């Protein structure tokens, strides 16, 4: 269980997340929805430990352990996974080498012996088959020259291989056409385990047509303003965010980017 309590995060001295609280339960799918600029990516990057984001208040615990003191790689080895909105390209590094290093780092953390390259390739091939990925994929350089859809599929492959306890999917649906979206969403569903808590961060609710969330949280101006079930996502799709803003006493925006933060908030 990942518990976020009263989390406040600043970038360059400016507070982006304010007193945010959210609990991600094992085996459940949580969706965080919100307009652009509401702080969704700040939330995912902060949980993963990006040094750019400064935690100024609150706590994040994984099964009771404070993770804010841990480095990025320690968090990863504890079982936190972030599927990136924009996965980085690492030219010259074959995907299989990268994934073997990541997988073996995880094994080492558990005190298990590393897999040799032959055994690892077999495991990787199984995981790739399950996601209908071509075998040649593993020899390509990490995200280098990948299409948008391929990058997202590679992220899901990594998630399926590393078997995280908490999976955060940051705008995984962005930039995908309908077919790619369906494949990626099915991949997420297929690799879901009863122990894993999943946090889907999205601007639109279209990915939620494929993956039914147990909880939907609406994020505006750096905090969760409303939580509910999947019907909340349906209403957001139909009516947009203005009704929630009105309900919460937030001034409506003149565009979809919340670059100006109302003084009242």
């Amino acid at each position, binding site marked *: 269980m990942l518990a976020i309590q009263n989390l406040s995060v600043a970038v360059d001295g400016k507070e982006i997340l304010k007193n945010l609280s959210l609990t991600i339960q094992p085996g459940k799918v949580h969706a965080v929805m919100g307009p652009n600029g509401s702080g969704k990516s700040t939330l995912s990057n902060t949980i993963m430990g990006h040094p750019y984001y400064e935690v100024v208040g609150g706590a994040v615990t994984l099964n009771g352990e404070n993770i804010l003191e841990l480095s990025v*790689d320690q968090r*990863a080895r504890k079982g936190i996974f972030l599927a990136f909105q924009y996965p*980085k390209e690492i*030219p*010259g590094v074959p995907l299989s080498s990268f994934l073997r290093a990541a997988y073996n780092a995880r094994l080492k953390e558990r005190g298990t012996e590393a897999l040799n390259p032959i055994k690892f390739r077999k495991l990787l091939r199984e995981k790739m088959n399950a996601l209908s990925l071509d075998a040649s994929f593993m020899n390509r350089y990490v995200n280098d020259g990948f299409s948008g859809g391929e990058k997202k599929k590679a992220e899901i492959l990594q998630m399926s291989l590393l078997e995280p306890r908490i999976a955060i999917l940051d705008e995984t649906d962005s930039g995908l056409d309908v077919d790619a979206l369906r494949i990626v969403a099915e991949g997420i569903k297929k690799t879901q385990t009863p122990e894993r808590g999943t946090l889907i961060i999205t601007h639109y609710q279209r990915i939620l047509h494929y993956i039914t969330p147990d909880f939907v949280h609406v994020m505006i101006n750096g905090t969760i303003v409303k939580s509910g079930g999947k019907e909340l996502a349906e209403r957001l799709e139909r009516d947009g965010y203005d009704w929630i803003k009105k309900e919460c006493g937030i001034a409506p925006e003149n565009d979809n980017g919340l670059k100006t933060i109302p003084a009242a908030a």
Partner: protein
Amino acid sequence: MSKQAQTLDYIEKLNKDVFDKGNAYEYAKGVKRGLSEALVRQISSDKGEPAWMLEHRLRSLAEFYAKPLPRWGIDLSGLDFDKILYYARPGEIKNRQDWNDVPEDIKRTFERLGIPEAEKKVLAGVGAQYESEVVYHSLKKQWQAQGVIFEDMDVALREHEDLVKQYFMKCVPYSDHKFAALHGAVWSGGTFLYIPKGVKITMPLQAYFRMNAPSMGQFEHTLMIVEEGAEGHYIEGCSAPKYGSQALHAGCVEIFVKKGARFRYSSVENWSKDTYNLNTKRGIVDEDGIIEWVGGNMGSCGTMLYPCSILRGRRARADHLGIAFANAGQVQDTGAKIIHAAPDTTSTVLMKSISKGGGVSVYRGLLKILKGAKGAKSQVRCDALILDEISRSNTIPDMQIAENDVSIGHEARVGKIGEQELFYLMSRGLSENEAIAMVVNGFIEPIIKELPLEYAVEMNKLIELEMEGAIG
């Protein structure tokens, strides 16, 4: 703040001690340090050389005394010509065909460098230079039968004198520069390769060089003649143990690629950090010939090395691939020189440099297109990766183009390892050191993949071993 400190800590630990372990050796002959006409005469008489070679040595020596030090490139003020051992040979070690005859301590050195293992695999022949003489040399019989000559230079001079005389220092004349002159005077050992017309050697031929005497110079001469339509690949690696006084390496490589021939010359140079590496490598390529240079420069306190291709035949082609790795206290001044002297000639250059711990890497390139070389094409790309705030990288390209109908591209990039890349790799559980090593290995991959496996492994080993140490 702490992040920066961590990066520096990683850089501190990334050194090459793993290759810098010398083994003690008794030197049978007490040759004096410093340079003199008497020494040059002694080298020549020791080797029983013909008169023309002694004359060539003496002319070169006069030229060496007459020529000033280069006023560009690395700082050579620390180089004391009087303290250098110009010629030495281990006692009683002669040319051996059988590995069992090689002395134990020399074997240990080679074993640490992976030589016997490599020999057992696909290598065609091993010429291993220990000090100034080849101690171990073998060649697969099938090629010997086809007329291929793969010999120690001293042996080649005795047994194939006419061939040597025809080509020796015709590509790199002793008058070229001060260190070419020095080389001409005191050269010793090296490799001679002759591939007859139409003979294609598919497996790489290999030699391993190693300096093992304090302050010992190494002046090996490599002469390769690839006749019409012939093909071959030669690879050599150099590693020197660490001693407290400066050593000098001023080797010379000359390659003649005849009409329609193809040759690849690969080298991994890993001299110890107190060695000045002032090496001259040059090839002359005839019509439809192809020369390929693949090089890794990882050691020395200062390197000046610019493999040169002279494309003198129509449609001749040169490809230069190189990695330079500048560590603390090192200046890697490397690059490529290409002279397009005929129409429709083509060249490509891809150089990658890594600087860290205050190291300086320089790409120094010369692209010369002579009048009349219509349709010449050249693509130059150099990428530099700087691992910390205290290291540097410079790019100094020189282009002299005397023809209009040509196509030229030059691209230079300087980068650091991005925070986003590290964040991405670390988010999958890799430590910061592992993530940095992965980005570095990826950066040099386009060159590494062109090397035979054993060499690729050696190039990667340095980074990976030290990474393990840094985490543990």
